[in-house]
């Protein structure tokens, strides 16, 4: 596998202008919202995982994913058992038809949920609260604080929930936790998260947040790489809107699943999307090439 050797804090999205970074991940989310085509949604997931690994230096460990695995199975089976749409019946369960289409749609929803989670986690980790407040705090102090809380919800949820769950498990006498206890833990965690948000709000008040017009200590300038990514973002938004209006990429899971049809237009849009997905890596690779060239020249 190709290894891009750039220190974590100097990787493209960290040094990009916060607005462009914000715009990039919002566009990413926009893409998975408007395209439900299986190939596009799978590619979105794959590249979001790659970005997750690259920008957050993440090492995948199975025990960390147990919680998500349970959630995934829950989402998948909820759709299969409660959605009766689709005409390819696989079998009957308690006289209710289980359809192949609902299974496919369940997988689509699952991938969509995971990709959304990863995108927002990337956005939260890369931007951090300070950059979000820099972007919006000046004119919308309350809204930007709420936005930063919402974004960090994904990160906080993962880290705090794991810690809280393990501490609560430790309080149980039996290894198997009953459904009622699980519900109590969930409610306890929700109240604790709200309590933490209230503490944050109190601290913000004590630090005069929102009382005056805000200035910023850090200055973020537009660089060539910001212009490059802006161009890619604007281009992809046009491509997405064009393909949606012209109905170039269409796929429906119901009433019966369709065979994937790949034509010239689809391939062209796919290439555009690929450029969008790999743009952050491309910026770092171009940086390495540029530095190597200067080293070679001088």
């Amino acid at each position, binding site marked *: 596998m190709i290894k891009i050797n750039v220190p974590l804090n100097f990787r493209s999205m960290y040094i990009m202008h916060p607005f462009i970074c914000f715009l990039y991940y919002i566009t990413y989310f926009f893409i998975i919202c408007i395209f439900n085509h299986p190939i596009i949604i799978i590619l979105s997931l794959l590249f979001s995982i790659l970005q997750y690994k690259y920008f957050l230096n993440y090492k995948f460990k199975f025990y960390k994913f147990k919680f998500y695995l349970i959630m995934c199975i829950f989402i998948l089976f909820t759709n299969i058992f409660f959605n009766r749409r689709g005409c390819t019946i696989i079998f009957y369960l308690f006289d209710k038809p289980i359809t192949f289409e609902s299974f496919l749609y369940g997988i689509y929803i699952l991938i969509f949920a995971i990709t959304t989670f990863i995108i927002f986690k990337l956005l939260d980790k890369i931007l951090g609260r300070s950059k979000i407040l820099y972007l919006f705090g000046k004119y919308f102090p309350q809204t930007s604080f709420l936005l930063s809380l919402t974004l960090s919800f994904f990160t906080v949820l993962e880290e705090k929930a794991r810690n809280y769950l393990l501490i609560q498990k430790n309080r149980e006498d039996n290894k198997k936790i009953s459904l009622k206890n699980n519900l109590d833990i969930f409610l306890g965690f929700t109240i604790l998260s709200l309590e933490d948000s209230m503490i944050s709000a109190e*601290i913000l008040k004590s630090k005069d947040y929102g009382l*005056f017009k805000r200035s910023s200590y850090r200055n973020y300038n537009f660089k060539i790489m910001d212009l490059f990514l802006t161009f890619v973002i604007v281009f992809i938004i046009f491509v997405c809107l064009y393909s949606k209006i012209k109905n170039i990429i269409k796929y429906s899971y119901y009433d019966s699943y369709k065979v994937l049809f790949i034509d010239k237009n689809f391939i062209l849009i796919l290439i555009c999307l690929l450029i969008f997905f790999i743009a952050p890596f491309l910026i770092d690779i171009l940086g390495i090439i540029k530095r190597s060239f200067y080293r070679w020249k001088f």
Partner: protein
Amino acid sequence: MEILELENFSFKYALSQSNNLSNISMAVNEGDIILIFGESGCGKSTLLKCLKEEILPVGALSGKRNINVNSKDIAIVLQNIESIFINNKVIDEIVFQMENRNYSKIDMQKSLAEIVNFFGIENLLDRDISTLSGGEKQIVSICSALVIKPKLLLIDEPLSQLDPIMSDNFIRIILRINRELGITIILSEHKLDNIINLCNKVIFLNNGSIIYNGYPKNILTKLYNSNIEKYRYFIPSIPYISLKVSYNKKIFFEWVELKKYIEDKKFLPSERIYNNIKDNLEINLHNIYFAFENSTHFILNNLNLKINKNEKICLLGSNGSGKTTLLKILTNIEKPFSGSVKIKYKVGYMPQDVKTIFRFKTVLEELDFSSSKNIDMNLIKNLDIENILNKNPLDLSEGEMVKVALACMIMSKSMILLLDEPTKGLDPVMKNELINILNNLNKTIIIVTHDMEFAVDFATRCIMLFNGSIILDLPTDKFFSDNIYYTTYISKCFRDYDKSILSVSDVILDE
């Protein structure tokens, strides 16, 4: 110049049935350092919050409350250092309040440079706050408050999570802030040992009312002579001994002064007996290595530890030495990078952030769950939590939360208890009660603490961690009599006289 005056000031939280602060009368002059102390939940934090307009708690106020300083010139550092940071990076946190006040970039740079040089924290600026030790976090929180050049600084329990060396450094910083920058300071604290002699005035609170208010020496004498015996526990060890042994009730604050005074006196040697059972191994850690993700160094480095049944152990060491991580590994919350962990019985764990223990709406439900509906009413009485049984645990003060969490732990069926900083937020009376309760328990107990006095009176064995390894593992008496820094003030004072004297209870005059 008087910058603050309260006269018959009372405060009642919106849902509270009685006053949380009653008839508070106090005056603060420019340049004062004022210390507020008292029982857990007596209203110290509420009183501090009532002095800053922006975070005034929701409730009913009455009486005179004259604050002659603009609210913009009052900075506050709240309790619970783990959750008071808004930003991820140290530099962002320090400049945050200046940004909120629309300072120009040049002003921000100037103030930042000044404060960073004053505290010598250049090396911390670009670090993630999550990677800082407790002491470093405390200094960053003070920096972020001072950067706006306040006239009045309010600090809520700043020493509760600091190791002894960090505490000493922090107290020196407080003194510098007051003397060199002329900032008036009001702080609340339970650990009074080093700080009380620096204050102009001290205020002793009980049940939301001021019991004593005045100069430190006068207040300590009043506490000593009070008819209420528990008040004596609030006197720090060195002044207490000086009041105890001097015929004219002279008070010394420094152990060096007391040492000179007791040179011609005779004391009985202390006899501490530890019944260590050597052949009933309950916990065995072998070659434990642990590192956090993306970290370049090991938090625990080739750690080996054997603990027998019913041992009472204190884990000591500086902030960031790996004590909490060791407890988390014993609880299976963290998994070691390599090495083996063998534990015979179920482990009960009380984390540093006690809020994470709770899941129910009332204290009673929490206790009911932990004790499997077999609540020990005696324990509730001893921990003084009878009056809060119907309250939501998250609405309690820090000290009360710790007491409830301790009750849950003690009532549980776990045969091994791991308690992370159980004395945090506890007043000296409760600390003493806790020592009695824990010593009478037929369980193996491992406690992480920075409180040397507590460790001396509770533990049979003390373990010191340094750089992820155990560097000292000795019976308590030997541990404290050998150490120079990590020991009690009483031991520092009496070591040349008799090495066995380690705590206040050991000091008995031979008359």
